[in-house]
């Protein structure tokens, strides 16, 4: 999914809010801004108020409070003293990993976390220490496809742990989160 900035209806101020939010990062995924993660769902700016809706990646993400504080501060700087800033987390539509932008995917890869595949009905069996599911994500270090999923669970709710058989490195991948495909 591409950046939503093109869809904004009211030009300049909303664009500045978007740009301010593009400076806010998820502390658990430091390389990516929240706009690249696809968390920013809606921006509405008028002379009186600015409203921003955010979509949590995972409901239990402990970084949500930090993201909210940082985003509020960023929007407040753009809003100036006259406008009421309202920022909330909403759950519709559900956030899916397809919302991460191309730039976000590149940043994740550079950071050493393989981005989730998009759309292809990816098979992702957790607990491959039991199942030995192969080829679920490419290695972010050597690019090999010869990888094993160790566990669908990792250091954060949004990451899985894998092992690369080519370069013998353990690595992490952003967990795909998308509706089951028929």
């Amino acid at each position, binding site marked *: 999914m591409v950046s939503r900035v093109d869809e904004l209806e009211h030009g300049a101020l909303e664009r500045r809010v978007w740009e301010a939010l593009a400076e806010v990062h998820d502390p658990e995924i430091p390389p990516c801004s929240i706009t690249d993660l696809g968390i920013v769902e809606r921006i509405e700016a008028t002379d009186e108020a600015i409203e921003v809706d955010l979509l949590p990646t*995972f*409901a*239990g*993400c*402990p970084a949500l409070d930090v993201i909210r504080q940082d985003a509020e501060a960023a929007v407040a700087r753009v809003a100036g003293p006259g406008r009421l800033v309202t920022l909330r987390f909403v*759950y*519709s539509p*559900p*956030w*899916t990993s397809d919302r991460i932008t191309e730039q976000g995917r590149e940043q994740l890869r550079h950071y050493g976390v393989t981005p989730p595949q998009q759309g292809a009905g990816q098979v992702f*069996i*957790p*607990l491959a*220490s*039991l*199942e030995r599911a192969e080829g679920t994500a490419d290695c972010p270090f050597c690019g090999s496809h010869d990888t094993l999923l*160790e*566990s*669908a*669970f*990792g*250091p954060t*709710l949004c990451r899985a*742990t894998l092992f690369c058989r080519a370069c013998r490195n353990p690595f992490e991948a952003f*967990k795909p*989160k*998308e*509706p*089951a495909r028929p």
Partner: protein
Amino acid sequence: MLDGDPRLSLLLALADDELVLGHRHAEWTGWAPHIEEDLAFSSIAQDEMAHARLLYGLAQPLVGLGEDSVAFGRRPVDYLNAWLCERPNGDWAYTLARQYLYDTADAVRLEALASSAWAELAELVKVMQLEEKYHLDHGRAWFRRLAEGPVTARQKFADGLAATVGEAVALFEPLPGEERLLADGVMPRTSEDLLAQWLEALGQDLEAVSLDFVLEHHGPGTGEMVPTSSGEIAGGEGDLGVPGVVRRDGRWVHDGGFTGGGGRRGRHSEDFVPLWEEMTGLYRAHPGAKW
């Protein structure tokens, strides 16, 4: 607390199951048999507690309390979780058997509630489903691993299933006010209907690995008194099958009472109060604390 809107009993049943089982799962943090499972149970616990929080948030206007107060500020009789969720973790096989049974059952009820006429609930359920998928896959992977594994693993897993399956059936005990929830479309299907779907699938899973005997023969007879759905107390004698679960025309069906029923009306096992004391201890010691 539950005299008013029946939607509250639905929310609390769902949320209290997640909170209380999440609390039990979190007890594995630092103690699971290996690091991947430590992370798995810690992550699953984190998800379950987050889902409880979403549902408590929806309950706030109905109950007139803040999120934390709904989660931790109620008396034990105001919690509507099923007994299955409050039982101590036991051994690793028991934990995995319970996780498999709970998450397969949870998937059935979430699938139904995703089309609830209560739009706010349906939205949250769709978010939960995307995350529960990983719990379900985790439970299923361990099911195959242990059921088809070495003799000792298989035997321990069978013991775990036998010890938990009766109380897992009671996850589908009808809710107070269910008739109104059905009439309003908040619940698209009856609890009994969901139980039938889950039980049939469970029977097939168990038969596929020849473990269906856990449905027939459920631990040694204890002679315990068993409450039934009608509120009657039935005396157990000799070996108890899973009460009310019978095989008919090649399918496993529910026909009668519940083992460990009463959770949906605030009745709990002897294991609940110690859990409640620990879970709510901080909240009670420091009312209104923020973190």
